[in-house]
């Protein structure tokens, strides 16, 4: 059984059809890519899977259960974590707090612990902190732990955002343009990091990316989206040479 199965998902923004009859199957532990020109509906698909939007039609099944209509935090707690294209970080919080607070779903000391500070709370807070440091180390941003997020360089902020997503212990990680705005060197490092967390934690990864280097390097299969519809699906090599994909990106050759 696939980890995530999306069947016949369609979404309208008013009269605009953003996603049409979208299908997807992600197996445990695989890395899959989603590409397409600007405005093709890639981020909308992420927002639909994570519950920010509710699809007009279609089913989203995660680990055998339909998750359509669940609030986003419940979907996230079931094991779908994500990062955002424009990095939705919390501007007044430190790096450590970012990662720590993403353990929210694991809190078991309840409100009594939160208000009164029971031994159980102290134990669990210490555990969260230790795990947070571990994730920051894994992403190579441990040295920034006690800095407020806005003081960090851009690339490091991207890494913190991934560490924060990992703190929710995802089975499926959705990365929305993880290498956007990075220099070529940073991009290569990011690819290495993604590969490393994948091999260490073994979750499935579904990523949107514009930089072909990244997608081609990381993904086993790639979906290409245009105007909300999948126009091609296959291995990196197949996608690279698919005339339909080339047309979507570069336009049709004018035959005279």
């Amino acid at each position: 059984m696939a980890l995530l199965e999306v069947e016949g998902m369609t979404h309208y923004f008013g009269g605009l059809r953003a996603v049409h009859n979208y299908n997807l199957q992600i197996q445990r532990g695989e890395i899959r890519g989603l590409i397409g020109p600007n405005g093709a509906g890639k981020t909308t698909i992420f927002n639909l899977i994570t519950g920010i939007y509710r699809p007009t039609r279609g089913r989203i099944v995660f680990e055998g259960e339909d998750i359509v209509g669940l609030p986003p935090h419940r979907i996230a707690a079931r094991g779908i974590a994500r990062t955002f294209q424009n990095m939705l970080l919390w501007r007044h919080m430190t790096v450590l707090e970012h990662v720590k607070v993403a353990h929210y779903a694991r809190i078991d000391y309840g409100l009594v612990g939160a208000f009164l500070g029971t031994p159980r709370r102290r134990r669990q807070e210490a555990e969260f902190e230790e795990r947070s440091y571990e994730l920051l180390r894994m992403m190579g941003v441990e040295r920034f732990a006690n800095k407020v997020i806005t003081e960090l360089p851009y690339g490091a902020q991207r890494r913190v955002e991934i560490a924060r997503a990992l703190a929710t212990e995802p089975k499926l990680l959705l990365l929305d343009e993880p290498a956007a705005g990075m220099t070529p060197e940073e991009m290569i490092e990011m690819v290495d990091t993604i590969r490393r967390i994948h091999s260490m934690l073994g979750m499935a990864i579904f990523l949107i990316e514009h930089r072909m280097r990244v997608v081609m390097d990381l993904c086993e299969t790639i979906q290409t989206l245009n105007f909300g519809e999948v126009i091609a699906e296959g291995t990196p090599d197949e996608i690279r040479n698919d005339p339909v994909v080339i047309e979507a990106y570069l336009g049709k050759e004018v035959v005279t």
Partner: protein
Amino acid sequence: MTTATQKQPPASDRHRNSTIRAVLSPWREVPFLGWLLGALAAVMLEHSVGSSLALTLGLRRIPVLFGFELMLKAPQHIPGMLVYLVLVYMLPAALVAVATRGLTNALAARLLQSPALSLAVHLVLLYGCMHFWCALSDYRYLVAQLALIAVMLTLSLNVINGYMGEFSCSHPGFMALGAYAASVLTVLLFVEDDVFGPPLLPPTLGPFLFPLALVAGGLVASLGALAVAIPSFRARGDYLGVITLAFTFVVKSLFENLEIVGGPRGFMNQPNWAGLPTVFVWAVVCVAVINNFVRSTFGKALNAVRDGETAAEAMTINTRRTKTVAFLSAAFWAGVAGGLFAHVVGYINPATFGAQKLAEVLAMVYFGGLNSVIGSIAGGLGLTLFSEMLRPLEVWKWVIIPMLLVLVMTRRPTGLIAFREFDALKLLGPRGRWEGGVQDGTAGG
């Protein structure tokens, strides 16, 4: 080369700076315990020789709130007053603090081995200072009670406006709910009253059950807060601000039209059970509980909701529960503070809980600093004291305080001590060369 020398301050200036630093350096090594001891010495001194010294200096009586009211009314007393302040407060406190720093540092380090004991000792000393300071004047006593209540209100409002970043105007409403609920309970159960008749329980039980009445008042306020918490799921920012403002006025007109609690004439006969010790204990519990909360992962979720709700949801945070908990717990403490206020003053009327109260609490929060427990303590204490000190100026007080607020807002838009984590145990540790547990043989010299 020339630019390098130009950047440095003139030699004389540098010399003066280092002299000041050298003179002040012993005081840098005074732990919090030492300052408490110094303050205690000062208030004890005032207790024993304060009034005779005041007479000698030509002052009619001891300066109640650091002499401000007298200085403003009778400027010819300013020199005498300054001498009094230096002789009674500054010199003794500073000298005792610095002279005992070896002892207090050692003691602070020793106490820290048992954090609970350390906190208890510091709190007892703090209360001792307040006790002796207030023993000299009923007015001081009342101001201290009101200042502690203001701290509770400020801190609980900070949970919503600072930590969760919503602009809530509903605090006077919460306070009114708590004040009326607690008052009705105590008057109904323990007091002979024209409307509520004879007491239902023996009045001797009253002081023991008083905390329960306050808690009940807090819970009523929490219940009322649901009316704000539920709209907050969908409305944010200005829109929620308007809803919370409406809530305050709805509560106010509810009590204006409720004849059984006196309508606009107000409600009195509250028994006098909220003495300074009671208010102090409640304020300490309030600060401890809220500080505990905002430092937990639960509490940090409030910050996440403030700084980005979409990301918070995506990181498993139940934003609805977070908002509900924030509103309800803040309302609870506002309700308890309201109940205390009613029993301190012994009279409440709906007009007390209107726009003026709202402006005061908001000013305390934004003056002290958003997202900061220590800022709220400073804001609540500071503005209460300051507004009492400026009382002789009458109407001009309401020109000066808002101007001050404008000044703070332009210099530090988030308040004086904003975004600071409050770790009481860090504050209570030893200082200077005693820090880090290294004991120096020459300590105390």
